[in-house]
């Protein structure tokens, strides 16, 4: 286990170093994909417990707006500080909404969580101080006034994203093996048994919801810093749907699934845009169908199949 943690850390450093030689568009694409990967990792925790949130956009957007608004009001570009604010605010909101949501299951959980994100969308569209539906621009991130290239650029956000994904990835990897992690699967499988083993199903779901909100807020914060612009679209239901899409694409069997899913999703989408600007939606739809049909456990299952063949 120690070895694998080291390995993940090593991979993180390697990916970070690769950022130095990558073309800018790829760095940017990967930054956004990793940020989405973070959101989907949180979604993965919920999905392991049988809950599908169609409202993670709520925290994704809230995290982004926290970074944008706090950056403006406090006149800081300090990425760590801003991301911390994003996470804290998201967890605080989740602590309230979670109390209500942890009573719901299945499609009702999905729709109720979506309702909350749509309410945020509505509020932001009405807020002309925050630029209404056009949103506003966010200054590029610094680390205590420092950037790798000397001037603010996409590399800084990339570094943040890689670091965040590595740290959160290691956490989630360990989490999924812990009693709390397994409790999610237990809740999905049989709530009655969980209660009769002396654990509170609601509390388990609540904690997972908080963690998922924190990760979504972090992902949103990084997106804001990387893209330099935020708008209420981040809370729209299609954004939340995209996260579920990515989760199924990558597979929920492993913590790497969301990251692979997010990168693959962004790559497919950008090349679909380029190859067929008129019918890119169709390409995306066909890709999704193909994955559901042939790789029901997501793209990660390919990797698993590979390694199993190797070891057996």
């Amino acid at each position, binding site marked *: 286990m120690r*070895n*694998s943690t080291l*390995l993940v850390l090593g*991979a993180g450093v*390697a990916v970070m170093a*690769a950022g130095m030689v*990558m*073309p*800018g*568009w*790829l760095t*940017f*694409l990967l930054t*956004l994909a990793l940020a989405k990967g973070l959101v989907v990792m949180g979604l993965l925790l919920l999905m392991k417990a049988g809950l599908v949130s169609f409202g993670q956009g709520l925290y994704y957007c809230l995290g982004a707006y926290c970074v944008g608004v706090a950056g403006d009001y406090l006149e800081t570009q300090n990425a760590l500080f801003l991301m911390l604010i994003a996470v804290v605010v998201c967890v605080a909101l989740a602590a309230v909404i979670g109390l209500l949501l942890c009573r719901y299951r299945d499609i009702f959980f999905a729709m109720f969580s979506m309702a909350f994100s749509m309410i945020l969308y509505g509020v932001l*569209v*009405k807020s*002309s101080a925050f*630029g*209404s*539906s*056009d*949103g*506003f*621009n966010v200054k590029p991130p610094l680390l205590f006034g420092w950037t790798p290239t000397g001037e603010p*650029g*996409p590399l800084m956000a990339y570094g943040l994203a890689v670091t965040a994904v590595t740290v959160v990835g290691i956490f989630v990897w360990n989490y999924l093996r812990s009693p709390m992690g397994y409790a999610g699967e237990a809740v999905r499988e049989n709530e009655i048994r969980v209660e009769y083993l002396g654990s509170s199903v609601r509390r388990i779901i609540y904690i997972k919801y908080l963690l998922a909100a924190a990760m979504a807020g972090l992902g949103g914060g990084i*997106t804001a810093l990387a*893209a*330099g*612009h*935020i*708008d209420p*679209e*981040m809370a729209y239901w299609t*954004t939340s749907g995209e996260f579920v899409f990515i989760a199924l694409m990558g597979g929920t069997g492993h913590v*790497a699934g969301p990251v*692979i899913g997010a*990168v693959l999703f*962004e*790559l497919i*989408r*950008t*090349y679909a*845009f*380029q190859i067929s*600007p*008129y019918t*890119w*939606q169709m390409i995306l739809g066909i890709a999704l169908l193909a994955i559901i049909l042939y790789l029901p456990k997501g793209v990660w299952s390919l*990797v*698993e199949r*590979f*390694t199993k063949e*190797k*070891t057996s």
Partner: protein
Amino acid sequence: MITSFVKKSTLAGLLVASAVAQPVLAADEYKLGLVTFLSGGAAGPFGVPAKNAADLVLETLNAGGLPAPYNMKGINGRTIKPVYVDEAGGATKQASELRNLVERQGVDSVVGYISSGDCLAVPAVAEELKTLTVLFDCGTPRVFEDSSYQYVFRTGPTATMDNVAASHYIKEMFPKLDSVSGINQNYSFGHESWADFNGSLNKLIPNVEVTTKQFPKIYAGQYGAEISALMVNSANVIHSSFWGGDMEAFLLQGSARGLFEDQTAVLTTGESAMYRLEGQIPEGTILGGRGPFGIYAPDNALNRWFREAYIARFETAPTYPAYKMVQGIFGLKLATEKAAEKVKGQPTTEDVVSAFENLVYEGPGGTVSMNMGNGHQASMEMVYGRYSHKSGEPSVTDVRRYPAACVNPPEGMSSIEWIEKGMPGAKCN
């Protein structure tokens, strides 16, 4: 675990390698990125007319078939090769796609963006990549009021003048005006349009009552309740910045219920529906075209050529997004060629930028002056008229033209501030 990582990184490496491979560029080609809506609700009314116009103009330019001063082949003699991108997907997505256009596809410059949100998001990327980016259609004045950019230009006028001119026009047409109502989409463009209209009208005619202001969701399509509310709270004039399908649906549903029989609508984008819904627009409806475009375009050689060629090819008259696209391409072409003349060779992007600043040129919609936003933002005259179908052909009467200096804030002042202060320095004749 280890093998899984090896496999994973090989896979990722392959993906990256295939993605990095870039197409080879022909030296005499000018690669032009064109970004407009090709899907969703803005594609039909805006994106595709703009794309059609671009197709038409670029082909003619490459053949050298335009009247002077646009008679040089392509852009500065280089054949233009368009690269189209769909504007769908939101501002973050578009920031990402602009990078792809520049870094992966290697475009020389970009003309595009209809959505104001996109116009606010992409300039930062354009600056970072030092790529000349011409915004052609979006309306929010915030682009150059909130920030200043070196590599970004907007050849289309801002939406402020649509609504300020609408106030002027109403003042003239309705001397006894005492009430207005509004129906605008619930998003930035709708909110800003109403605020500009209401603000400027209050300065021009004090004490006008606002009977109701409705903000239905964009793309809602069903306006039954809103129309009833407008009927219950009847006013002299109904202001609406609805566009595309929403505007057309509102017109159809409103006409069928007789909404416009004792109230007059001001449709700031109404010109684009003139030919599509010719029988359905009530007589006397006030139509704007977001500038001197379409039916309001001046009778000059460029306009005659453009209109005829567009109608011949697409079997419909060009609407304002088409005009604005042509205007954007023309500005880029002219600035590039002016810079080339100055440096006597292929100009750098910076050369083109300095030639573009404060450029004054003629397009199919008349004079475009890049005299706002430190020489990066165009201003134009604004025109309003009233719909008439008496001749059996859709046409406009009572046309009033408002000079750019009358309906735009002076350099250095934001639109909101300008309207709040009672539009000081406006030179109306």
